[in-house]
């Protein structure tokens, strides 16, 4: 990736973060932590990787993304809006009655959402089904999916992992947002996410471990994975929950936070300063 391309992605991530913070602040509270931890990945997928068309979100042979950790909706919506899937003004309707942007990703409401999330574990099975469907329909498209480390406590994740391994779905690219936190606190204090890379390898997956906030590592992992046939791909991303919403960084209670409009603008200013913008 050349320097211009890298700057483009960094700009996109910054804009998506600002939109996500303002979006949540427009409602007054929301799932900031798990939204902010996947912003680099969303930026990379939508700005560099995925074959999608904002003017035709239902295009059959498109690449698809299932955000199985559906509570990251605010960041996904900010990304989709920035790519023109719907007007940016929609972002200020988050969670309001009648909105098309509900707390958790909903394929029946939002243009560009490829599957419904919200009941954790379910989107992952659907992603396996979508990848299988692409194979049955002889499409060369890819399926991308994002799961959380807390979400990986759901048994369904491992049922689906086994099936994808058995069916050798090499068009499936999964990302684990390993931020070490869940709603009630740190995963290490609840059900620790131990041996994640080994677990996925033992389920028959091609595994990569990266810093999920580093675009070059995201790119390298995806490109390396594409060269490995016959295995589904798991990219374990070490991330920081609430990364980029500085008031939420490094604290325990950052799953869902109250954010006023004033706090949002202060946080955006602080982020701009940190990034030298």
């Amino acid at each position, binding site marked *: 990736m050349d320097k211009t391309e890298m700057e483009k992605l960094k700009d996109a991530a910054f804009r998506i973060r600002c939109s996500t913070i303002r979006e949540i602040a427009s409602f007054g509270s929301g799932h900031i932590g798990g939204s902010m931890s996947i912003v680099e990945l969303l930026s990379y997928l939508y700005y560099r990787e995925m074959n999608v068309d904002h003017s035709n979100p239902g295009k*059959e042979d498109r690449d698809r993304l299932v955000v199985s950790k559906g509570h990251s909706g605010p960041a996904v919506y900010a990304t989709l809006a920035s790519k023109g899937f719907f007007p940016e003004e929609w972002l200020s309707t988050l969670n309001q009655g009648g909105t098309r942007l509900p707390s958790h990703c909903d*394929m029946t409401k939002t243009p560009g959402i490829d599957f419904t999330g919200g009941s954790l574990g379910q989107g992952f*099975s659907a992603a396996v089904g979508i990848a299988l*469907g692409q194979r049955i329909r002889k499409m060369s498209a890819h399926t991308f999916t994002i799961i959380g480390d807390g979400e990986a406590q759901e048994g369904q994740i491992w049922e689906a992992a086994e099936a994808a391994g058995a069916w050798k779905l090499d068009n499936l690219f999964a990302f684990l947002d390993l931020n070490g936190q869940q709603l009630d606190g740190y995963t290490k204090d609840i059900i620790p996410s131990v041996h994640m890379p080994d677990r996925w390898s033992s389920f028959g997956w091609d595994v990569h471990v990266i810093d999920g906030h580093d675009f070059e590592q995201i790119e390298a992992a995806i490109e390396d994975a594409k060269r490995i046939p016959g295995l589904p791909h798991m990219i374990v991303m070490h991330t920081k929950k609430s990364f980029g919403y500085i008031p939420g960084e490094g604290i325990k209670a950052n799953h869902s936070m109250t954010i006023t409009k004033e706090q949002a603008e202060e946080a955006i200013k602080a982020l701009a300063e940190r990034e030298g913008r």
Partner: protein
Amino acid sequence: MKDAHVFSHYKEALIGAVMDLAEKHPEVVFLDADLSSCIGSTAFQKAYPERFYNCGIAEANMAGVAAGLSSMGLVPYIHSFGCFASRRDYDQLFISVGYAHQTVHVIGSDPGITAQYNGGTHMPFEDIALFRQIPGFVITEPSDAQSLYDLTLQVHENGAPSYMRLPRKGINFRYKPGEVKLGKGVELADGDDVAIIATGVVMVDAALGAEKILREKGIKATIIDLHTIRPLDTELIEKAAAKCGRVLVCENGRYAGGVGEMIAGHLAAVNPVRMAFVNVGERFGEVGNLKYLAPAFGFTAENIADKAEELARK
């Protein structure tokens, strides 16, 4: 319209219908959860190896994968025993299929006491109630091989997600090809003393036996085979209630959330009539063959006739 006499078990009529659909519709796929040899979906696998997936003993994932396949424009059929096809994957069917507006056809075999030797752990009595909670699901329970075959085709054509309570072993023939229509119950006997509404092979057979017993006692019963539980054939039910003023509902399952409660709820709103019910009450299932289980649960012609007579004489 195929004559179901070519089949020798109910399960063959189901797989035959799905294979006939698969031949015409390349989007039809079949998923099983390690019960492929029980239902005979091995035949589908042989004919369409790229459209059959055994998901192993993982029903929740099977339902989720089916939902994903549906979002890709495919039409998945998924099978397990009714207890597992409803309970083990319920949240997946509710959210990933129902809420997400996907079309998946769920086949739950061995409804109620027909689970027989697999016993109480395998005996679904609550499955109708569960599927009734998911907006949009069609629910069927055919009472013969021909209606099973015909309804499978019609449910596919209908396009909504569905649940079929599938008798697996044995066979009987009641209808001519094309006679049964989705959503329209069948009046098998016409009488004006009491209406007996029954669902499924066990109950429809027992209700027809009851009709003979009642006739000998001078009580004329209307018998309705309610093969489609949802959408409810309200027109036929209202007609029977108006004609008889007494309605007995017989189901191989629970009252709570079941067919009887559904009909009672409807009639309470439009034409309250005296009603009685034959169902499992507050019991769990237990092991045994049908000869033992049917009388043990009161799913016999004699018990239905007694209940109907009591109701008719009130």
